[in-house]
């Protein structure tokens, strides 16, 4: 935590409005949030022992439920997907639209498959 001020010193200062996200932002956000949260996230991570938060390598979450919440929750609330009861093909269709039309291009192919698996299993036609 004592590292925090140093991140902020690395911050390049005033930028033009609507500038790109500067390098190092993630580390800043990670550090800021980890101060707020302590090790809660790490502890929650699949029951594995908490990993130390490293400045330039924020933890990559791989549990399907977390992937769904993380990536889908960026743009819209999760109530909508949770209200759906769709088969695999339709979830694939939705995912394709989110990536191709709504710009969720950061979700890797592997992550997409894991999210589709999760949604099909938990929000499929037979789900309560």
């Amino acid at each position: 935590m004592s590292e925090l001020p140093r991140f902020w010193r690395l911050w390049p200062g005033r930028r033009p409005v609507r500038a790109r996200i500067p390098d190092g932002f993630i580390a800043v956000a990670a550090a800021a949030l980890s101060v707020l949260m302590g090790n809660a996230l790490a502890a929650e991570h699949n029951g594995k022992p908490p990993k130390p938060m490293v400045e330039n390598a924020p933890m990559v979450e791989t549990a399907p439920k977390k992937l769904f919440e993380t990536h889908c929750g960026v743009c819209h609330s999760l109530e909508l997907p949770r209200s759906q009861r769709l088969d695999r093909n339709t979830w694939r269709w939705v995912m394709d639209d989110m990536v191709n039309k709504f710009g969720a291009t950061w979700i890797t192919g592997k992550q997409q498959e894991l999210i589709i698996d999760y949604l099909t299993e938990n929000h499929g036609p037979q789900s309560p």
Partner: protein
Amino acid sequence: MKKSLEIHDQLRELLVENGASGDDLDRFDTVMSRRRFLAGLGGGGTALSLLGFGAGAEMALQGLFGRGMIPAAWAAEAEKTAQIEGKPGMIVHNPRPVNGEFPPHLLNDDVTPTTRHFVRNNGLVPQRAEAQNPQGWTLAIEGEVHRPLKLSLEDLMQMPSATYQACIECGGNGRANFNPPVRGNPWDRGAIGCSEWQGVRLRDLLQRAGLKDSAVYTAHDGEDPPIGSAQPFSRGIPIDKAMEEHTLIAYRMNGKPLHALNGYPVRVVVPGWIGSASQKWLNRIRIRDKVHDSDKMTGYSYRIPEYPVPPGSRPPESVMKILTAWQIKSLITLPAADTKTSAGKRMAVRGHAWAGENTVDRVLLSTDYGVNWKAAKLTRPANKYAWYHFDSEVRFDQKGYYEIWARAFDQRGNAQPFRQPWNPRGYLGNVIHRVPVLVDV
């Protein structure tokens, strides 16, 4: 605590540096001050998960901060309470973007009060709408016209106006009744309202601008910021419908400036057609020399196959056609579902019927699963495209579980179906409305 406050300030500064709007800063402050931000995290909330992006994090955040927005996950908690003011009792399908409807029994009024008019958004609510601030707003009419126009709200309000009751109904209203289920907001039956709208006839504006012979279609643009990197929401209508006298550029709803969630300061009202034609937060109409071809006019959005397809299938895009008018439909607004009564007691039944470009001919009611029917009393609408109202009385002689069914017919003889015909995105749902009643049970 002191440390968190510092971080709050630092994050806030970061947002300012990246051009966050005042609106988003307010949301950020709300979230941070209420600590909902933190509270939500432990319960699997999404804010913390920003940390989990890994290699894609920068791209994800760039799309948001680069446009001066804070991530949805951070804003959602604040918006849950902040944005849905003035709509008590609304069933919220989704807080971001805000989408909500009212249960049928809350839609009993002849003219839908603003507080009970549904909300369907593809994008976010513009800051101007929330602040009810007309400063700087203009409406541009351009494209295939001889004299492009740019009008202030005052300019618009000085033109001759018309006032109509008009049904606006989301094209997906009824989607929850599709089987197999389809994607999209699960509207049941309440994504419709028939409020009173005042505004300038679109045809007056188009005549003032002078349509060129090449004019074929309108394209409506609004101020609502899109979500993610979606194309800004835009749809349009054929020139004939634009020139129809009930098509309005509306600035009053039920005698007042428009509610923020219903399109302040100005929206299009295309009565009888699917709601997406009635662009909210309007600031530009482009007259096009071909059918409007935005994202929401093409593909599977607001389109249905030109022939019936097997339920659950996905026909090729080439057979999808643009949705226009609604079709015959009715809604029982009294009694509410699962109302309890006693044998031999009379029970009032009431509701509305509407028919897109057609007229309602009759509404029949049944309390025995369609074996016997009787006609309800039908009241004519205030004007074309407004709701018809139906009234009747029923009585149950024996205890048991009953359903009141309503079935409307248009002047062509088209009636509501008993089973919901299926299309891939769940549009134009008009299966008959069934209201359960419990008699001495």
